[in-house]
């Protein structure tokens, strides 16, 4: 696309020379030397940072996924083609559980905390008293760092002196459930903690969307005899498509990237039985004691490809209007 731009002096899109292409819009705009320099600097610096520190590493990761490397001497990098991928898919025991857990994570988040956040936003979007208190209470977990969140749930889930087992024992003695150690339970325990944070995030995003919503549409719906639920489902929800897309992307990306909370609740030692996730396997292979960079990168590329589907959907939806 940038080839349309007749800018002889500028190389890659790093230095966007503000020479206007004659075809774009009729509004005449002459930019002086100083203006052009200013724009080049203020856009060029962040763009350079983005390309060098985000996109270059992303591309390099794809390259590394076809190699084997211990991560120490760059000279030791050896090309192995698709071997890493073959290994991952056929001969790497934690891979499929991790994929499965990521899917569970996504379904859980999409079906419980996300609609619940929307439900809360719907009820908070009216002039009732204490609304700020309710908002704050539900949003508060988002403000806490994951280390803090991890710690808080640790003292709830602790099998010996945690709140949960304590309460259960009060009701019916004899419980000793290792919430975070039992491979059948720990994923769900972590999902509850994650939902505790995610709900507030969705609530705030949706509340922002609802506040910007045109009240005349709702008024028209209620004049037509729609009740509250009908108005929401048939009028408000469809009209808030941009917010819905953002929420969808946030939900998908957060589910794919889920890392910190599992890392912290798993004791900070990478993946644990029952809690394997792609992000943790990558970290295991890359930062762990025995580095398998190629392997970890191949896992990262798998995660990247899945993420790109979400990113692509989002960008296509968002930029369709502007790209004309």
């Amino acid at each position, binding site marked *: 696309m940038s080839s349309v731009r007749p800018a002889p002096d500028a190389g890659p899109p790093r230095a966007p020379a503000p020479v206007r292409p004659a075809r774009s819009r009729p509004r005449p705009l002459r930019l002086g030397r100083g203006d052009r320099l200013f724009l080049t600097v203020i856009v060029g610096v962040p763009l350079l940072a983005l390309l060098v*520190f*985000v996109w270059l590493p992303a591309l390099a990761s794809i390259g590394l996924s076809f190699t084997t490397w211990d991560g120490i001497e760059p000279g030791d990098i050896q090309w192995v083609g698709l071997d890493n991928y073959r290994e991952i898919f056929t001969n790497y025991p934690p891979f499929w559980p991790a994929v499965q857990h990521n899917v569970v994570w996504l379904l859980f988040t999409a079906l419980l905390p996300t609609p619940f956040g929307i439900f809360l936003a719907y009820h*908070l979007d009216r002039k009732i008293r204490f609304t700020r208190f*309710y908002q704050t209470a539900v949003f508060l977990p988002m403000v806490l760092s*994951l280390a803090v969140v991890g710690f808080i749930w640790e003292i709830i889930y602790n099998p010996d002196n945690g709140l949960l087992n304590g309460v259960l024992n009060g009701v019916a003695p004899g419980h000793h459930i290792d919430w975070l150690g039992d491979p059948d339970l720990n994923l769900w325990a972590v999902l509850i903690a994650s939902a505790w944070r995610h709900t507030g995030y969705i609530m705030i995003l949706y509340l922002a969307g609802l506040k910007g919503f045109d009240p005349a549409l709702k008024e028209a719906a209620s004049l037509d005899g729609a009740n509250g639920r009908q108005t929401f489902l048939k009028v408000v929800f469809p009209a808030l498509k941009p917010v819905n897309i953002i929420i969808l992307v946030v939900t998908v990306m957060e589910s794919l990237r889920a890392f910190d909370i599992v890392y912290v609740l798993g004791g900070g030692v990478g993946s644990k039985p029952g809690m394997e996730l792609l992000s943790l396997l990558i970290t295991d292979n890359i930062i762990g004691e025995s580095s398998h960079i190629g392997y970890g990168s191949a896992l990262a590329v798998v995660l990247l490809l899945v993420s790109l589907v979400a990113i692509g959907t989002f*960008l296509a939806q968002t*930029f369709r209007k502007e790209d004309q």
Partner: protein
Amino acid sequence: MTATVTPPAAGPRTRRAPLPDAGPARPRRQTGRHVLLGSIAFLWLVPLLWAVYTSLRPYSDTSRHGYLSLPHSLGFENFGDAWNQSGMPHFFWNSVLITVPAVLGTLLFSAAVAFFVSRFDFRFNVVLLMLFTAGNLLPAQVLITPLYRLYLLIPLPGWMSDSFLLYNSVWGIIVIHIAYQCGFCTFVLSNYMRTIPKEITEAALVDGAPVWRQFFQIALPLCRPAFAALATLESIWIYNDFFWSLALIETGDKRPITSALANLQGQYFTNPNLIAAGALMTAIPTLLVYFALQRQFISGLTIGSGK
């Protein structure tokens, strides 16, 4: 807004208690809603309140009577001890050194890019915006290995980093936060700036104001609500980050408070009350930011995301 939505059945019908005696319709509906929202809010606060309760009790009390017991004494000793014993002031300072420049840099740079893509009609604007937005959506684990190697290759002068490298320096953490977070802010700010009438900057242009004055004196002040919302979110995210500092900082004493807390947990794991106090104290700065900017928070997000 409320006046428009008062058809008979606007509430959560299933959850409302079936009160037998008829009262005035409206207050009853609101009561049901308050009961519902109040119990949810309380449920959401339980884990936090539990941590506060734990942190207020001395370790000797809980070890004798168990955590699930009534207090025999409450006090702030744990907070004092955590503050003094774990070097928290030092790690707080590290977090400030990272968060403040990173948030300011992210906001300034993304405002510049947003200003550019929303005020000028270049063909590659959409590509530029996509590049930034998509960059923010890449999983951090995908970047980490090459980024680590890259950080080992970039030299810094000794006054900036005692490792003489971008690796193991706060600068490296600041840079990756800015590069990574710019995407989200650019996206929100460009939507926001598009709602500012073009006539405003055009009038300035006619008056002969150079672009830098349009940017600093017109665009930036008009974006204040969006800045408030983004400053809240970005402060929370950057202050709370621990992946980058875990991977890109080698020495423990340079790490920010969030990743230092993990060390603390290993060191003092025998005393959860102390760690509870330490953990809660690390949350204070983000809480202050949230409460300070809360009023503008939602209204600032509105135009950005709801457009």
